[in-house]
């Protein structure tokens, strides 16, 4: 059966998760204890001292200095305990161990793009090796984003004008959710990916083969792989449904009406231009939302994508 984690926390799949979970449950149970004490006292008093008749007299209660001190000192001590614990874990989470495997992350509305050390760039899912510290160096092409992997208990904002980073060491092979948690516009909730944790040797093979890409692949197959890897699927459907961008179904050869009143036929040159210069002509009813990050695709990759779009009739 799939591991669903505990009631409060999802499955833990990183070396830091256990430590953070213990801290979470410690503060949780202390909070529950305090809460129950407050509510039990409240309910007990309400029942015990309920007014019997309207003109009941009350004795003025002598205020207790010791009691007053108790609920100042005890919570202060508890707070200092969780503070110290929390900030020590925070430091361990902030500083990546030396020799961590680095992956470059670029966020843009509404895609994640990951670049590995052999120059392999892939959108869609993040692949990482298990049992090895991984450091993500992140930047944004447009607005604020935030990378969040609940199973690893890590999160950090991704910012347009500086690099930020997170690190983690995944412990279990499998697929985990990756969310954008800083609001970034229309399709914020569609800016999802999976983290695919693989054993080290499998991961090496995957990076070396560029995710299963080869020079002798037929163009449409190459296009399909790119469609998934480069995140096209986040905005362009294959079944005609409306997303942030126009669907690929029946796109090739159709008449395109642009916001400025001009028209064109969606031929090879139009598709190439739309991938490389997405802002140049915007189809009526759509916004200029596609990031201009696909100019680095090779000639063969462009041909592959166009061939794949052609096949979607």
């Amino acid at each position, binding site marked *: 059966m799939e591991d669903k984690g505990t009631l409060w926390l999802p499955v833990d799949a990183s070396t830091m998760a256990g430590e*953070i979970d213990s801290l979470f449950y410690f503060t949780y149970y202390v909070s529950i204890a305090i809460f129950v004490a*407050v509510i039990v006292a409240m309910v007990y*008093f309400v029942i015990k001292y309920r007014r019997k008749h309207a003109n009941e007299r009350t004795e003025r209660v002598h205020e207790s200095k010791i009691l007053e001190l108790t609920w100042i000192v005890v919570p202060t001590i508890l707070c200092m305990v*969780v*503070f110290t614990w929390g900030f020590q874990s925070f430091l361990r989470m902030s500083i990546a161990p030396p020799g961590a495997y680095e992956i470059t992350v670029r966020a843009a509305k509404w895609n994640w793009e990951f670049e590995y050390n052999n120059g392999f760039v892939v959108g869609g899912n993040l692949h990482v090796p298990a049992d090895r510290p991984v450091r993500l160096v992140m930047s944004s092409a447009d607005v604020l984003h935030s990378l969040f992997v609940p199973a690893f208990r890590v999160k950090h904002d991704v910012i347009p004008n500086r690099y930020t980073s997170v690190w983690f060491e995944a412990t279990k092979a499998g697929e985990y959710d990756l969310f954008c948690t800083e*609001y970034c516009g229309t399709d914020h*909730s569609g800016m999802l990916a999976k983290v695919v944790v693989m054993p080290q040797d499998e991961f090496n093979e995957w990076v070396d083969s560029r995710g299963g890409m080869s020079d002798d692949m037929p163009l449409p197959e190459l296009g399909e792989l790119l469609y998934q890897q480069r995140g096209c699927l986040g905005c362009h459907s294959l079944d005609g449904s409306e997303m942030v961008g126009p669907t690929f179904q029946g796109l090739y050869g159709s008449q395109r009406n642009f916001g400025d009143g001009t028209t064109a036929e969606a031929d090879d040159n139009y598709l190439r231009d739309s991938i490389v210069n997405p802002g140049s002509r915007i189809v009526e009813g759509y916004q200029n939302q596609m990031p201009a990050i696909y100019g680095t695709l090779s000639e063969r990759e462009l041909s592959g994508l166009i061939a794949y779009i052609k096949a979607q009739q």
Partner: protein
Amino acid sequence: MSQTTATDTGNVAAPRAMKHYLNHDKTIWSWLSTVDHKRIGLMYGVTLAIMFLIGGTLALLVRIELLTKGPTIMEADTYNQVFTMHGIVMVFLFLVPSIPAVLGNFALPMHLGAADVAFPRLNLASYYVYLAGGALVLCGLIVGNVDTGWTFYTPYSSQGDGSVLFLTSAVFVAGFASIFTGINFIVTIHKMRAPGLTWDRLSLFTWSMYAVSIVQVLATPVVGITMVLLFFERFLGIGIFDPALGGDPILYQHFFWFYSHPAVYIMILPAFGVVSELIAPFVRQPINGYKFVALSSVAIAFLGFLVWGHHMFVSGQSAVSSIVFSLITYLIGIPTGVKVCNWVVTMYKGSIWLQTPFLYALSFLFLFTIGGLTGIMLGVLAIDIHLHDTYFVVSHFHYVMMGGTVIAAIGALHYWWPKMTGKMFSETWGKVSCLLVFLGFNLTFLPQFVLGSRGMPRRYAQYVAEFQELHQMSSYGAFLLGFGLFVALGVFIHSMMAGKKAPPNPWGGATLEWQCTSPPPYYNFLEPPTVNDPYNYKPLVYRDGDRGWEYVHPEAPEVPQSEPEPAQS
């Protein structure tokens, strides 16, 4: 003289009481141009009720959309605009003014034994400035396209068409209403106290209003400046926040939270004051640890300025700042805990009268304690990394803002309702609505804690399948909560139409407003009030029939009326 007032059967018998602040002049102009603090409080009350209805409707639309994981009734763009407007309306147009502008305006001068606030015209100006802010928000609603979230984070908010500027200018304008009220209350509390009303005899409601007014005056200009900087960036192209112009988006977050964190205390401190008033008379005990409760408000107001960075633990601010902000965050938890403990201990050996306002106070203690403790959890650095920007945070601040402020405000509205309108409401239905709101609220927001800690990010129009059940529970809770609030509205409407006549003091309160008739005359006090300990219930006796509570034999020594109080400063 005041001796006779006190031993008399009360002010209610005076024939002059026939004319009161509601009916001394009935023209519409007399309302629109009034400088009477009670009428301004009522006008604010009606306006804020409309804002609450708008914000609440938007909230229900959000919850309906989240019934299913895909699009339910709207597209992502519409959803983003709906939650944005919900946040802006609720925070800037409802929660920030709520208790000070409605209940503070109505009750604070009477708590001081004064005829009005120090600057009655400024008070009226504050209302119209607030209306102007509300009108700008309406423009933004009509123009549409505002989907930045209530935080207006750059650079997202500097892109797109200019409609977001309607909202930022609304925040700028409405801020002045807040500043006007703050200045007014500070001066009123310093200068308008009745003879003999020394600082250690102020009601705890007054203390909290004093603390909140200081925060309003000091913090609100910062959000105004931030909004002006957004204008400069947009129209003059000066790079302040937008990286494309050489600005820094994190600077915006610093500016924004430097106001918006103290603003959290602008929203919750008045609720603390109200709750003290809702507990003491129904327990017939003075609030335990009066000095601690009073001064903890001031401590919270001060510390509230030093913790804004705890909203930015994952933003890219330095680790050292995060650690310092985390530490100071706990320091706020201590005075807050002191208040809760003192409120509960006040009930010890009391004589507890379970009327609707007190039930709301109990509801507040339950919900606010959850809100406060989850706040401590979020202050723990390593845990916040996981919980930040998830539904755990959403639930936490709803427990504080709605479970705290809104519940206290509704309770206080029940408490002062007889004084405002001169009519009693149905106790039975008041209790029913309190229970429905309590159950509905918990059903809405308890599942959101679990959603958040399991990883559900906030501001998501659509979500992954595993979260659907909890989202549905939350939505059904929201419907119950909305229903409960409509029952409360029905209670008030029924009271206005067919409520029994209220006595001057229906609850047995010892603060000075209960010495006025219900409703009070234009200048509040027909006779100068007898100034006493605000929580001394010994001289109050319950009379059968509809006479409520009356003073019989005041035990506290009289303060000579001829000598001005030297302690005033």
